């Protein structure tokens, strides 16, 4: 089973990378972009989808400062 984990900085915590991206865009000629946040993407094949939650809690995300979201992508041939 292919799965995708989206990990984002928790709301209210400064995201310097997001800020930097947002600041860089106008100079490159892109106006009208806001609310930029930079997080992490982890993709993996798991035999047992029920493991995803504990894998995220224990390793992939730090729940103190990050939120995560799991998406199942169906079978691993993808």
């Amino acid at each position, binding site marked *: 089973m292919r799965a995708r984990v989206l990990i984002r*900085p928790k709301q209210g*915590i*400064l995201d*310097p*990378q997001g800020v*930097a991206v947002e600041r860089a865009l106008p100079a490159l000629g892109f106006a009208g972009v806001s609310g930029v946040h930079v997080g*992490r993407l982890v993709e993996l094949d798991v035999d047992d989808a029920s493991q995803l939650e504990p894998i995220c809690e224990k*390793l*992939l995300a*730090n729940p*103190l*400062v990050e939120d995560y979201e799991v998406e199942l992508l169906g079978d691993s041939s993808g």
Partner: protein
Amino acid sequence: MKFGVLQFPGSCDEVDALEAARRVGDAELIWHGERDLKGADAIVVPGGFSYGDYLRAGAIARFAPAMESVIDFARDGGLVLGICNGFQVLCEAGLLPGALLGNANRRFTFRQVELEVLNSGGSFTGACALGERLSIPAKHACGRYYADAETLAAMDRAGQFVLRYAGGESFNGSVHDIAGVSNERGNVFGLMPHPEHAVDELVGGSADGLKVFESMRLAVEGARV
């Protein structure tokens, strides 16, 4: 007095920490795969990039077999010092409150910084005076200390803020300019700057960091008599 200094495959500052500790006592390296802490009276989790620091600094290292023993050791009241990557590992392991995030300046930064001692009563700064300034190098990419407001308030009440960057020297953007914190019980301490790199004027720019090791010795030996 014997220090045990953990060694991960990606540790960088473990020999520096070992030699710094040897200035005040005995010290030995402990391989990450071992569970035996070799009778150490205090543990140092050193700086570096434990397991490459992939994913998140300290995230993988906290599961090392040696760390399991360190967690037990800390629960029994043993002294544990985490420096830089070691601080990150201790936070990830839940031995210290809060987390360390990417520097506000988004860069690895090396700078000699001035630290102010906010709590001189504990086991890690007992040899310092309250308000004393320490000149110690800092070098890291993920040193922005963060904890939520409630946690911070509780830490403040319990005197867990031990060191802070003096006068605007926090390139990492730490909340309240925090450089080093202890747990509530006061036996676990982590800081981003590197006291082990300030034990010899010749190469450290100062010898102020020796006070951290000296404080630990005093705490261990004081407890013994």
